């Protein structure tokens, strides 16, 4: 299958042309955030405080890498389960994020938001953290350092493989998978 190359910051026209099932290689900057970082962002917004990092236009990668050993850019760095961050989707789109990378299903509300905000949800390859670490060219913590692996890391990616899981039309690869077999 063909892989499409995409670059960050991701352009609206690129998002518009992505279809559920498309294989993509991402090059450029993404920011990691998982459960705790989302919770912190929510708390800062609730108390009208400034966020430690600008998220407008960014791609969020749900990942908590393992520590990098000396001489290596990154430790193992695959995606974590996205659905745990579903409750934060509205907040994150409001701040201006354009895409999320994770793994697994999203709830219907998030799917509607993806359509409304003309965003895209990518799945990367769960349990391929060693392979994916090689697609990371630099990694540094830029916010919430005390959270360790759950801190916000800025990653510079090169040809990082993902699958378009939910496109701006709301088409969902996971639903297609079971429907094709006459499942649920």
């Amino acid at each position, binding site marked *: 299958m063909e892989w499409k190359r995409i670059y960050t910051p991701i352009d609206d026209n690129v998002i518009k042309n992505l279809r559920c099932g498309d294989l993509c290689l991402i090059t450029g900057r993404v920011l990691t955030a998982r459960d705790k970082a989302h919770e912190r962002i929510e708390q800062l917004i609730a108390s009208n405080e400034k966020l430690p990092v600008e998220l407008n236009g960014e791609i969020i990668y749900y990942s*908590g890498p393992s*520590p990098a050993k000396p001489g290596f850019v990154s430790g193992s760095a*695959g995606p974590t389960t996205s659905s745990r961050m579903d409750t934060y989707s509205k907040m994150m789109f409001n701040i201006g994020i354009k895409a999320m990378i994770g*793994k697994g299903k999203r709830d219907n509300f998030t799917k509607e938001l993806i359509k409304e905000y003309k965003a895209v949800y990518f799945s990367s390859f769960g349990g391929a953290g060693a*392979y994916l670490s090689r697609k990371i060219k630099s990694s540094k913590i830029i916010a919430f350092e005390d959270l360790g692996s759950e801190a916000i890391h800025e990653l510079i990616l090169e040809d990082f493989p993902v699958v378009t899981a939910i496109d701006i039309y709301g088409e969902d690869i996971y639903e297609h998978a079971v429907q094709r*077999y006459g499942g649920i």
Partner: protein
Amino acid sequence: MKKTIHTDEIKKSIAEIIENINFTAPDEIKKLFQDMKSRESGSAARETLQILTENIEIAEKDSIPLCQDCGSVIIFLSIGQDVEITGEYLYDAVNHSVSDAYNRLYLRKSIAADPLRRKNTGTNTPAFIHADIVSGNSLIIDIMLKGGGSENMSAVKMFLPTDSEDKITDFIEEAVISAGPNPCPPIFLGIGIGGTADVAMLNSKKALLRYPLEHNPDPFYRDLEIKIFNRINKTGIGPMGFGGDNTAAGVYIKEAPAHIASLPVALNLNCHSLRKGRIIL
């Protein structure tokens, strides 16, 4: 005959297993991935199986963890009743060994000290230890690393003793479909049938300790494993849920006697990365 085992020896064995299973996969698993790829019809699914194969190669070459979720450390100790353990308190020794290994090997620490207050212990301890007293003078140490994503898809249901086998397999299929991509398929599915609710749950995990290509020795349960395996692989979920023919890599049942009124069935889903190892002292 009595045997004395010092906890230093136990600690060394635990560290050895943890290192081995975070960075390597056994040959039979590599072979299993090749077999799955050769019969996979989904295109994104085939790419996925290829990436997972290369993932193992890179992990082994560079000693990078197979997965960034280096897991909860689940330890099963089968302690022969003719074994005398000397040295530290056994559970302290286990936790010291886990903590040292996770620190020394640059493994992710994923344990919160308290389920509601959520502060990370920073050591990946405590390990979750299950100890059984068995006959003989050996100590068998089985270790599994369990990622949070697949553990979260666990399920248990109390059936009626008169419920049909079909009703049970329906439940299993529905649970696997509902979990979908989240446990990182192709999954290794552990099933505990019988016992009490807690015994069934524990057996669903113990079932995963079996040699990956081995069936239940009882032909009745072997046939049921094959039946469940075939049903799950017809759901279409496929590798990483992208659609395909390989949703389950293996199905393992561990059965237990049950109360005349009870028929618990518990499921423990393990991701495609079956990280487990055994040492016998």
